[in-house]
């Protein structure tokens, strides 16, 4: 699964730390998601989508083989 968190973050001009604080997770988690090393839970994906004001599908995209 891919995601556009890094892009969305750049649009909003916020750091990993800011994003982490806003949704109540650690900075490691944001970093791991941006590097596609961690697939977040549904709750976390929904929180991220709500923060960016987009649909979950616009931020998290399935890849071949998923």
């Amino acid at each position: 699964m891919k995601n556009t968190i890094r892009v969305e973050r750049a649009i909003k001009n916020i750091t990993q730390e800011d994003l982490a604080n806003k949704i109540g997770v650690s900075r490691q988690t944001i970093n791991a998601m941006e590097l596609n090393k961690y697939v977040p839970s549904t709750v976390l994906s929904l929180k991220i989508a709500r923060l960016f004001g987009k649909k979950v599908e616009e931020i998290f995209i399935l890849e071949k083989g998923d």
Partner: protein
Amino acid sequence: MYNILYICFVTNKYLNKMKTNFLFPNYFKKIGWVILIPVLLIDLYSWFGCPMPDLNVTVLSVCIPHGFQFIQNDIADEILTVLTIIATIFAACSKEKIEDEFISKIRLESLLWAVYINYGLLIINTIFFYDTDFLNIMIYNMFTLLLLFLLRFNYVLYKSKNLSA
């Protein structure tokens, strides 16, 4: 009987509601490390056969064929062992500042990793070491599981903080 079942049921419901993860609060981690580091240094010091203070006292001992009896024993090693175990438990099983789902995943993975490595080492110990060497390594083995976990968990946490694309 039914009362006990009911208590278990209620406790379980309560624990589920609290989303418990059986971890100590974050400040226990600091307490753990503050005890662990000096205790490990003293452990190392005593492994090299350096003299320890003599703490001979009368202790209650459970002797398998005879039952309870009072014996004289130097309790320095008992104190060290208990302190090492409590300190490693505190350092390993306390919440991070922000304990989220990714950290929990690393925690579980590291525990599994530590179990495999620990038992791998135990097999090597069983096959290649005999008599007192075997027993000595078995004593260290009491602590290696959690120490391996601590190493792996903190290494992965550190790495995931500093990795960049």
